[in-house]
């Protein structure tokens, strides 16, 4: 549908109005801070998504473009391509964005820069919608950078807090490392094929018009970009730090925008990646390392948001690993991305609800909230079970397809994937049990350093309340999707929404993947998840085992997890000893060679020489005249000498 540009167009309009209003200070006069404008744009986008999806089903993949740049020898178009992948992403983005924005009206109430917050959210959504609609790599790259920039704005929303400002910088710089790779990769492809159009590039790949070496390099560089955005090892370090942003922003970043961009890029460029031998295996490898590592860290982190953040890293690694599993993996990974978007957004919104109610986000200071916050507890339970992948929740169907795809990659890959399922059940359940069961934290925790933002320390427990309506509705909507979002994989349900053979017949690479239910895989993964839940219950609910004893028993492993596998330390060392050292070298060159010798040098020499020359200026007329005469005589002598 040609009107698909309205989706990002509307949200961009909201951004323009709100950012101008908040810059000029007019926003204070708009009722509700103008949040309704941003929400209305997201709502209309979400409503418009349906005709776009229906149109895609009726007409199939289609694209349209307008001329963009026309200079000698180069004609660029800015266009949109709509195919099943784009449609799924559009639906996910608009839905999650709508939920997050409605939720934000409750969560961010009374915040200074309230309007600017919504402006930035709108721009973020615009960039992400543009990213999934773009039909050429150049436009995609622009949107890609815009997504990174918006995440910088929002992670650093509380820019007066040092940690937030640094987290924003860290996110921006870390993802930039990958972005540079992406840009070089895109330019390599442009040089090899002469076009930025994705369809043109893929056609060249299929006909073998690109040299294998160039193709491999370009694919690797593109994947580098995806690794940065989707927080794959070793670029995952920015994501947990990004928790410094407001919680609804985390939900948006982790579910629909930013991190989804990397997975989307890999899926979008799948013809490219699958044409490079070994590339898919490499993706699986990177993904598995990421997923196991992050799941391990999530077991020991005590900040609720960081637990969920590492869970996201782990799940993103899982998606990338699945993407590396060929055609079936392609479908499964995107399916997983969508269902993950629902329950991950729900997890964050639920966590935000807890933080909103208690002003605490450390597990050691929280507990026993189940009775005070029944709604939050129940939606978080749904999200946790979906995360663990229990049937019949959405996480089960998507994870199951993913595991089927991975099981074709050999027992080791499959075993590690099952391990990650087991671990995610543990950390998810640990979070839930520690938040909602057990005794409320003791008083000595209450008087911890975080308590100072309460005016009266004692009132905290009484003031704890469940989510207000503005926050509850989006959580319920997301909870509903977390429950039913997965069943479209079933042919019977898929037929109702135009996917007669399940999602595999709608979204596929090369050929449709018929719905395939492997009882063995389903039983294995469900057993692993149940086992994980059982272990977590034993540790944190029934308390028949002691987590502290476990920590003492495996103290070295625990320390390694607590220090997050030392990745941050390695980066710090590299920055201190490599980046700064070479920076000092460059600074020395700049100061000594460029500045002192190059710029000041001529000046110094001139001054020194003129200090000598000034003595020739005696001020005596006779001297000057004498020198003139001598000069003339010399000239005469020379002239005569020359003549003779």
């Amino acid at each position, binding site marked *: 549908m040609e009107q698909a540009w309205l989706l990002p167009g509307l949200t961009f309009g909201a951004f323009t109005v709100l950012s101008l209003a908040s810059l000029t200070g007019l926003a204070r006069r708009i009722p509700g801070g103008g949040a309704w404008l941003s929400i209305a744009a997201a709502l209309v986008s979400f409503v418009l998504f349906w005709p776009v999806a229906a149109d895609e089903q009726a007409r199939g993949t289609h694209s349209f473009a307008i001329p963009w740049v026309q200079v000698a020898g180069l004609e660029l178009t800015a266009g949109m391509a709509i195919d099943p992948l784009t449609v799924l992403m559009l639906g996910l983005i608009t839905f999650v964005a709508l939920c997050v924005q409605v939720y934000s009206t409750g969560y961010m109430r009374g915040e200074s820069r309230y309007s600017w917050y919504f402006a930035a959210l709108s721009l973020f959504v615009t960039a992400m919608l543009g990213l999934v609609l773009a039909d050429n790599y150049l436009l995609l790259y622009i949107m890609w950078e815009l997504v990174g920039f918006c995440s910088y704005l929002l992670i650093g929303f509380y820019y007066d807090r040092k940690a937030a400002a640094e987290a924003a910088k860290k996110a921006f710089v870390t993802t930039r490392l990958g972005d540079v790779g992406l840009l070089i990769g895109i330019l390599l492809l442009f040089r090899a094929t002469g076009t930025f159009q994705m369809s043109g590039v893929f056609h060249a790949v299929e006909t073998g018009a690109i040299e294998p070496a160039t193709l491999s390099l370009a694919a690797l560089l593109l994947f580098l970009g995806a690794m940065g955005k989707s927080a794959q090892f070793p670029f995952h370090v920015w994501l947990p730090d990004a928790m410094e942003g407001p919680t609804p922003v985390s939900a948006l970043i982790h579910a629909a925008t930013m991190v989804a961009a990397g997975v989307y890029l890999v899926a979008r460029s799948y013809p490219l990646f699958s044409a490079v031998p070994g590339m898919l295996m490499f993706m699986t490898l990177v993904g598995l390392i990421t997923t196991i590592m992050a799941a391990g860290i999530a077991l020991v982190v005590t900040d609720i948001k960081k637990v969920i953040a590492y869970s996201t890293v782990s799940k993103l690694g899982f998606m990338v690993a699945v993407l590396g599993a060929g055609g079936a993996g392609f479908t499964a990974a995107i399916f997983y991305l969508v269902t993950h978007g629902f329950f991950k957004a729900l997890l964050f919104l639920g966590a935000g609800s807890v933080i909103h109610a208690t002003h605490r986000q450390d597990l050691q200071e929280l507990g026993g909230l189940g009775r005070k916050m029944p709604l939050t507890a129940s939606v978080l339970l749904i999200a946790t079970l979906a995360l663990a992948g229990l049937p019949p929740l959405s996480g089960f169907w998507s994870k199951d397809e993913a595991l089927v795809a991975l099981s074709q990659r050999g027992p080791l890959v499959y075993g590690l994937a099952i391990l990650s399922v087991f671990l995610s059940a543990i950390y998810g359940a640990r979070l839930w049990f520690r938040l909602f069961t057990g005794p409320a934290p003791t008083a000595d925790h209450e008087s911890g350093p975080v308590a100072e933002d309460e005016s009266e320390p004692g009132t905290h427990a009484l003031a704890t309340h469940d989510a207000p309506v503005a926050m509850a509705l989006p959580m319920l909507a997301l909870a509903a999707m977390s429950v039913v979002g997965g069943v479209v994989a079933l042919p019977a349900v898929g037929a109702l929404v135009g996917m007669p053979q399940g999602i595999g017949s709608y979204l596929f690479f090369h050929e449709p993947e018929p719905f395939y239910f492997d009882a063995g895989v389903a039983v294995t993964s469900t057993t692993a998840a149940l086992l994980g839940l059982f272990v977590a219950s034993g540790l944190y609910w029934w308390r028949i085992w002691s987590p502290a004893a476990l920590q003492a028993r495996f103290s070295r492993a625990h320390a390694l997890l607590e220090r997050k596998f030392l990745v941050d330390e390695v980066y710090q060392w590299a920055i201190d000893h490599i980046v700064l050292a070479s920076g000092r070298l460059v600074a020395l060159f700049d100061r000594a060679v460029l500045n002192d010798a190059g710029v000041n040098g001529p000046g110094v020499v001139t001054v020194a020489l003129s200090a000598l020359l000034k003595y020739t200026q005696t*001020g005596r007329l006779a001297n000057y005249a004498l020198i003139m005469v001598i000069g003339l005589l010399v000239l005469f002598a020379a002239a005569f000498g020359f003549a003779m």
Partner: protein
Amino acid sequence: MIPIQQVLTISAGLFCLGLYVVLARRNAVLVLMGLELMLNGVALNFITFAVYRDPERFLGQIFALFVIVVAAAEVGLALAIILRLYRLRRTANVDEANTMRW
């Protein structure tokens, strides 16, 4: 007719005398007079060559006239400057007019 060498010697002598005065004297008025001597030497040189080598066309004489005219103008200007200098400094010593030096 007097040999050309003798006339040229007188002309060169005049010029050198003027040059010496310009270089050696401190009084601005005397320097100016030295300058006039040099100009006269030059003018005599012009006329000598004109008369001895190319008597038909009076080119040298014309140059001499120009020299005299320019010299007159120059003296007028230079005397005015010297007058100003004297008013300013109460002296016409050229060595004392050295404020433009480093």
